[in-house]
Each structure stands twice: as C-alpha cells, then as structure tokens.
C-alpha cells in the first residue's frame, strides 16, 4: 500500500470515464475498464458504479504530455499511465498516456488496456507496487493472455489487507460452460496453503462409496484440466468444478457433462487455442469441445506417437506459452508439439531432470497463473518452470478454499 495505507472508507465506489482513446472502439474501452473493476470487486466487498456526469471517486482519462498534474507523460513507451491513491479531489483518478497505442488484444504492437487499467485501478484502491514477478501490481508491463486472467495471490493478499474478502458468495453457477471467449473476467482464488480444517474422512462401511469430502486431507485426483478458464478435477465418476466466475465449488459427474464418456480418466488437458480438451483412459483418448465429443474418437494413444509398450499415461498438461504438451508416464515424460502434431525428439526424459522438486510419478498436472502444479497423492507441487524452481507444496485440494 501507500504510506499510511489510504483506502476508500466505503464499499460503494463510483467511477467515470471522462474521455476515450482514438486507438480503440468506445465499447472496447468501456469493457476493458469494467472488466478491470470486476477483477478487484471479485476478491473484495467493493462494488463499482459507473457515473456519466459530475464528480466520481475515480475519474478515468486519456491525455498526453503535460495534463494538469505534476507528472507529465513522456511520449511513446516509458511511462504508460499513473493513478492516485484514494482521497478526495485527484485521489483515485487514473490517467492513461494517449501517446501509447492502446489495444484490447495482447499483441506486441500495443498495450492491453485491460491489463494496464487493472494495474492502475489497484493504485486507485490504495495498492502500491509489488516486486513479485507475475503480480498485477508489478511496475513493469507484461503482455499476457487476458482471457482467463487471474490475480496473483500477492495482489489478492494486498487488496484484502485493505478491504477484506468478498461478502456474500454469488449464486451457484449454472451448468453451462462459459462461451469460448468469456465476456466477464473475475478471478478465482489461487490455491491456499494446506487446509487447516480437519474433515472426518471415514465412509461408514455400510454406505456405498460416495464422493469424498472437498476438504478431505487425503483427497487425491485421477486427472485435472482447465476448460475455458475453469478448472475441472476428476476422481472416479466425480468432477469438482472451480469457476473464476463464482467462489463456490460445483459438484458434478462426468456423465452430467459427457454422458457417453467412461469414468476414471487417467489424464486430461486443454489446448486453449483450439478450445479442445483431451481425455485419456488406458490406451485410448477422446477430444471434446465444451459438451460435444469430436467424431472419430476414441483413438489409440499411439496416434500421438507413443511406442506400443506404453499402455496408459499418468498425467498430461499443455503449456500455453510453448505450445508443447507434456505427457507423464512413470518417472519419465514426453513433450508433444501441438503445432506440428508430433512427439519431440529426445524423449522420453526423466521427470526429475527437468521439473525440479518432482522426484516421483505424477497423478495429474495443471498450468495456472503461469505456474505448473503437479499432483502426487494428496499433495501438489507448485513449480516455476522458467526459473526451474519448486515454489511450494500444498494439499491436492487446496483449490477448494478449505
């Protein structure tokens, strides 16, 4: 936060867009700003109301060079925008440098307005800069995929230190998966540390095996995948569904989404660019898009390039950045190039050689918030691939807000 931690002394904060950049459609500017506010309202009790006239708490404007405050902008590049901490007058206001090229995309030919606005509004709410690489409040602009953008835990910790967590949990999600390009953006809580709450885990012997408790500290998973910004956890015929749009965990069954699919997946992964999820069981795999199963499946896993002696895989995860998919079998892994649709040369390799801290088999794997999560039994390991570092170990069900 800023010195003396200035914050809004109310939960209903108003904002007004004073002018627009000619680089974007007005509707795209309004959507980028609204989504940026939604990011913060989803993790705090704050509610944001847009005003179309008069004085709002947060006045948003585009300007170049000298623009009436003591901090002139500097032309293209360098400083992109700035904003003032909560207080009356100029407090809370956010200014964007019109000499930049603003865009709604995450290309390298412009700056994504949603990302910069989300950062600046963090200042408007009282946050200072973070030195955690990957946090939204990191001072340097980083182009990244904004489709299912989620706040880093550091951002959530900072804003909740000022305003606390959200009040009521919104209504339970409907069944429908979000459209391929989700229009609303909020955040899902990033995984918390090991759950403190102990759940009784025994099932009474007479009762048929039922869905394990969300917060059962011994809970393990068969497979985990993202799906259009959500995360699906599979065990037997059960699915736990974590959506960034709602804080509640939804409980489903595989047959409620894909009636003709078998239960007990070994692995699953999403190729977000093609809006496709692949499920693996024994030596077969299926491809789905949303609810529909693609025709011509199941296919043998040898179609992907596995040797015939491989009868099943343990886990799979697709790296959005490198477009490679990693398949884990025993203590080894393969790398599959989704662009060339072929296994890479020089594989399999030992998992431990390239994934620091993962010295065992992998039950399930996930990429989220720029990190990889490897699940082994009732534990998961958060790994920063770029820096080849094991960040932390948590319980497998730490995503369930236990």
């Amino acid at each position, binding site marked *: 936060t800023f010195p003396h931690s200035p914050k809004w002394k109310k939960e209903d904060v108003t904002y007004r867009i004073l002018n627009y950049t000619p680089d974007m459609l007005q509707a795209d500017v309004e959507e980028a700003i609204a989504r940026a506010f939604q990011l913060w309202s989803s993790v705090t009790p704050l509610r944001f109301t847009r005003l179309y006239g008069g004085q709002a708490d947060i006045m948003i404007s585009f300007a170049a060079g000298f623009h009436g405050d003591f901090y002139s902008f500097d032309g293209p590049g360098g400083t992109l925008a*700035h904003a003032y901490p909560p207080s009356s007058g100029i407090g809370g206001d956010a200014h964007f440098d019109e000499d930049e090229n603003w865009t709604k995309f995450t290309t390298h030919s412009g700056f994504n307005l949603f990302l910069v606005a989300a950062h*600046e509004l963090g200042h408007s709410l009282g946050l200072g800069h973070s*030195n955690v690489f990957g946090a939204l409040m990191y*001072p340097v602009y980083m182009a990244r995929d904004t489709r299912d953008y989620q706040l880093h835990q550091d951002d959530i910790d900072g804003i909740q230190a000022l305003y606390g967590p959200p009040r009521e949990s919104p209504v339970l999600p409907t069944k429908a998966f979000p459209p391929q390009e989700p229009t609303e953006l909020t955040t899902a809580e990033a995984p918390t540390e090991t759950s403190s709450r102990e759940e009784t885990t025994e099932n009474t012997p007479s009762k048929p095996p039922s869905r394990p408790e969300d917060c059962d500290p011994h809970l393990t998973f068969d497979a985990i995948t993202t799906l259009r910004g959500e995360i699906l956890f599979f065990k037997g015929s059960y699915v736990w569904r974590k959506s960034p749009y709602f804080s509640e965990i939804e409980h489903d069954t595989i047959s409620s989404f894909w009636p003709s699919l078998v239960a007990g997946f070994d692995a699953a992964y999403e190729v977000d660019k093609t809006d496709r999820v692949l499920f693996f069981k024994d030596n077969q795999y299926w491809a789905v898009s949303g609810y529909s199963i693609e025709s011509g499946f199941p296919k043998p896993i040898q179609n992907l390039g596995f040797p015939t002696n491989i009868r099943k895989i343990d886990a799979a995860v697709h790296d959005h950045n490198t477009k490679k998919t990693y398949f884990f079998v025993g203590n080894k892994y393969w790398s599959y190039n989704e662009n060339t649709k072929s296994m890479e040369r020089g594989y399999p390799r030992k998992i431990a050689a390239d994934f620091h801290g993962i010295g065992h088999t992998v039950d399930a794997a996930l990429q989220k918030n720029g990190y990889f999560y490897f699940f082994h039994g009732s534990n998961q390991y958060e790994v920063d691939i770029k820096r080849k570092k094991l960040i932390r170990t948590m319980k497998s069900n730490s995503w369930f807000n236990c």
Partner: protein
Amino acid sequence: FPVVPEKEKEDIQFAQKYLENFYDFKEEKHSLFRAQKLDRMADKIREMQSFFGLEVTGQLNRKTLDMMKQPRCGIPDIRSYS
C-alpha cells in the same frame, strides 16, 4: 567492446531521470562534489536493483538499464505521490 563515451553520458542522464521519477533520487543542483552525487546515485541504483531482483551492484550495467527502459507504470516504486 567499451561503450562509446557519448552513449554512456546519455545512459547516465536517462538513469538519473528514472531514479528521480521512481526512487526518490534528488539531484542537489549546487552540490560541488560530483563524487557525492555518484555515490547517492549508486545507492539508488542498488535500491532499484534490489526491488527488481537484479544483482545488486550499484553499477549502471546493461541489465539494469534494460529494466529501466521497460514500459511501466508512472507510480514510484518506493514512495507515494506527494
């Protein structure tokens, strides 16, 4: 190869402006001792290197300059707006 002297002068001016904007560096216009100014600037460079997890040398090396040239937010990293 060694940096061309003129380029080096530009870099130092750029870095000084950056440190004034984001690390509360104040150049005392009338300070007679150039060495003192460079010491204080080295302290601020160390502060910036530490914030970004760079090697803390106090030297205006290539990595430090590259980080200074990244597009960024106009809010200071270690002080709020007065």
